[in-house]
């Protein structure tokens, strides 16, 4: 009998680390159609499981590793997988996306997802195959770096590992698969708390697809689009994300000196062009990637993953360091220790400002770089002051003060984009479900100056655009796709021909299309069309048989965003928690131009109305319209707590 949907393997593995047992988690075709997969699927699973007051290091906090239906179906850039859990850094859900090959291997074992619960008493590696799940003693791996650990696991398998930072429960520890990382929100600390040192997966299955011929045609066109688009076919392969440093400097959005400015005099020494000319050994790519944005560089005679934009900015301009060789080395050290470079760097910058303001001296100061590597080691092993920095900037500000310049949202340190010259991006940071994440934010900077030159200081239309991009990227991620593929949705001529009269007219009108975008975002099912600029939608239809359209994509996105949000409310997020540090909302970046701060309250009013939320809390009507699985009783109790 024909399965209702192809593209999926049809099973979700449930692993109990306490009792060392495994079973199947019930997941139906209706669930697949409602959530698509990836982070939306994980949010749905976690919403059904979480309880009031549950915390990251509770035994029954689940780690949910999910794939999307396009993974394994031959689509470009489709090897992304997701890890969701309660974050120890923020206390709410985190969803951390990774480009390693573990997701593909997991599907080859016959599973769309794996859930981990419980805690092992001793270090353990969970080995997943077609027929079995084996719990292997990992005592000999405990203490090893991420590379050492992976070298000791079976070569022909997908791997998930943590490093020393995860073992010591650094609140922003991450998980590695190959050289790629599920970086944000501290998923590595939850692995460490469960003594889960590693997971391996080996299998040989592949998903069926619904219409192989049409999918092949779609994929061929899709690859052509990605390879010829100005962003995905030219800038990213040539310069990687590091190519953003110079445009960010120009647009005054390069976070500098703990986000006190948007430009750095030494930017030319740390920019992507410098990296490409003097340090790049070769490009690299995630499995199935057609873009190849990753940079490989040399450290200690080894060829290793090079720095991305985030670490170049946050360990460059943001701490007043213009030595790119040091950044390359720190990037390697952080990867080996298994730490999120964004949160680590943001926390270090905050510590530097605490010293500058005479609040607390951690031995770190702006422009001083000789002891930073040592501090990273101290953080990973929670030694000395490293134990304090291992808890992130929010907890440090609660202890020592400086909340107005502790640069985080909901406890997660902000990425390298200074939002006072890209106010829509600021709204995105504040409203992102997992905290100060640029991608979960909707990546508004791509239209506010970097890719398109839309007025970056006006609040007009930004709420509507942020919602549309947030929903769209949520759905792209749920399909198993790299978010960078979504940049190709922007027509190439708007990017390549910024001085054409037609481009200027379209860009000038961009901030005023809010009402139309709002309608699309609110009545997502109405957009029953597919557009060539969004090949994901065609691919989902031909891979799975699910009647995917642009409206369906926006619906999956809205469903995911609302599901994560109400889960966060149950986990204790308060009403009106969508905030930014006062430095970004109350102090103009340019004292002579009052527009250079984030008019957050003004934009949030529009945002909440368009989302169907009140003070950041989804209304009951909105959740029911989307079909989010929550009872009225739980909803009422959660909302009451949110306003307490």
């Amino acid at each position: 009998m024909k399965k209702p949907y192809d593209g999926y393997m049809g099973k979700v593995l449930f692993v109990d680390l306490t009792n060392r047992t495994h079973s199947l988690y019930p997941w139906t075709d209706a669930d697949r159609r409602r959530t698509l997969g990836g982070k939306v699927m994980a949010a749905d699973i976690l919403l059904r499981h979480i309880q009031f007051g549950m915390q990251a290091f509770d035994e029954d906090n689940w780690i949910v590793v999910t794939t999307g239906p396009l993974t394994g179906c031959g689509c470009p850039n489709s090897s992304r997988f997701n890890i969701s859990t309660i974050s120890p850094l923020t206390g709410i859900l985190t969803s951390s996306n990774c480009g390693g090959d573990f997701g593909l291997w997991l599907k080859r074992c016959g599973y769309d997802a794996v859930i981990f619960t419980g805690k092992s008493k001793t270090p353990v590696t969970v080995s997943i195959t077609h027929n079995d799940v084996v719990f292997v003693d990992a005592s000999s791996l405990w203490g090893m770096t991420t590379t050492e650990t992976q070298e000791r696991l079976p070569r022909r398998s997908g791997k998930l590992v943590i490093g020393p930072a995860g073992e010591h429960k650094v609140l922003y520890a991450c998980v590695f698969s190959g050289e790629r990382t599920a970086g944000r929100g501290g998923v590595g600390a939850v692995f460490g708390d469960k003594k889960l040192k590693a997971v391996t997966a080996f299998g040989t299955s592949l998903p069926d697809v619904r219409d192989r011929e049409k999918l092949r045609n779609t994929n061929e066109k899709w690859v052509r689009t990605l390879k010829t688009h100005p962003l995905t076919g030219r800038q990213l392969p040539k310069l990687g994300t590091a190519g953003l440093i110079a445009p960010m400097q120009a647009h005054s959005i390069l976070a500098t000196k703990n986000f006190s400015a948007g430009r750095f005099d030494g930017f030319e020494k740390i920019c992507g062009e410098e990296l490409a000319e003097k340090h790049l050994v070769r490009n690299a790519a995630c499995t199935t990637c057609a873009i190849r944005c990753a940079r490989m560089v040399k450290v200690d005679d080894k060829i290793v993953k090079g720095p991305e934009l985030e670490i170049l900015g946050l360990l460059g301009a943001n701490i007043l360091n213009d030595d790119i060789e040091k950044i390359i080395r720190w990037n390697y050290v952080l990867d080996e220790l298994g730490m999120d470079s964004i949160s680590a760097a943001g926390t270090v910058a905050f510590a530097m400002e605490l010293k500058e303001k005479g609040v607390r001296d951690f031995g770190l100061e702006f422009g001083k770089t000789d002891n930073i590597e040592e501090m990273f080691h101290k953080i990973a092993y929670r030694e000395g002051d490293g134990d304090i920095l291992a808890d992130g900037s929010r907890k440090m500000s609660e202890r020592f003060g400086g909340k107005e310049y502790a640069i985080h949202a909901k406890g997660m340190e902000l990425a390298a984009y200074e939002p006072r010259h890209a106010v829509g991006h600021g709204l995105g940071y504040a409203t992102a479900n997992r905290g100060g994440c640029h991608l979960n934010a909707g990546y508004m900077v791509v239209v506010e100056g970097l890719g398109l030159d839309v007025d970056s200081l006006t609040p007009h239309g930004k709420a509507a655009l942020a919602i549309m991009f947030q929903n769209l990227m949520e759905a792209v991620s749920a399909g198993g796709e790299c978010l960078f593929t979504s940049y190709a949705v922007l027509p190439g001529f708007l990017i390549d021909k910024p001085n054409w009269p037609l481009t200027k007219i379209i860009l000038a009108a961009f901030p005023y299309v809010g009402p139309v975008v709002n309608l699309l975002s609110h009545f997502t099912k109405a957009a029953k069309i597919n557009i060539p600029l969004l090949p994901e939608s065609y691919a989902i239809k031909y891979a799975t048989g699910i009647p995917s359209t642009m409206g369906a994509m926006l619906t999956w996105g809205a469903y995911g965003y609302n599901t994560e949000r109400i889960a966060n409310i149950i986990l204790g997020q308060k009403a009106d928690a969508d905030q930014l540090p006062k430095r970004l909302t109350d102090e103009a970046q340019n004292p002579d131009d009052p527009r250079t701060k984030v008019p957050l309250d003004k934009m949030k009013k529009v945002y909440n109305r368009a989302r169907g939320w009140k003070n950041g809390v989804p209304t009951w009507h909105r959740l029911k319209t989307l079909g989010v699985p929550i009872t009225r009783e739980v909803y009422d109790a959660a909302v009451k707590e949110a306003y307490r």
Partner: protein
Amino acid sequence: MANVTVKLFGVFRVDTHTPSIALQAEKLKDVFPALQDKLGQLDSGLQFKDATVYINGESCKKKSRALQDGDEIWLLSPASGG
């Protein structure tokens, strides 16, 4: 004619292997053909006149802008990432 420095970023720099170049030009619009003459066509097909332009750190969209001695001109290509 003003003596100016043009700094190239993004695809402009990678394709031409030229971080910066000194030029003489009266107006901004004169800079683009001068660059074309000195550096040739870009591998990627992008044209200098389509660059995002900053002069002395300020955005400049006027091609007729008169240049002055010592002006520093940045030419940038569009970018994205994450």
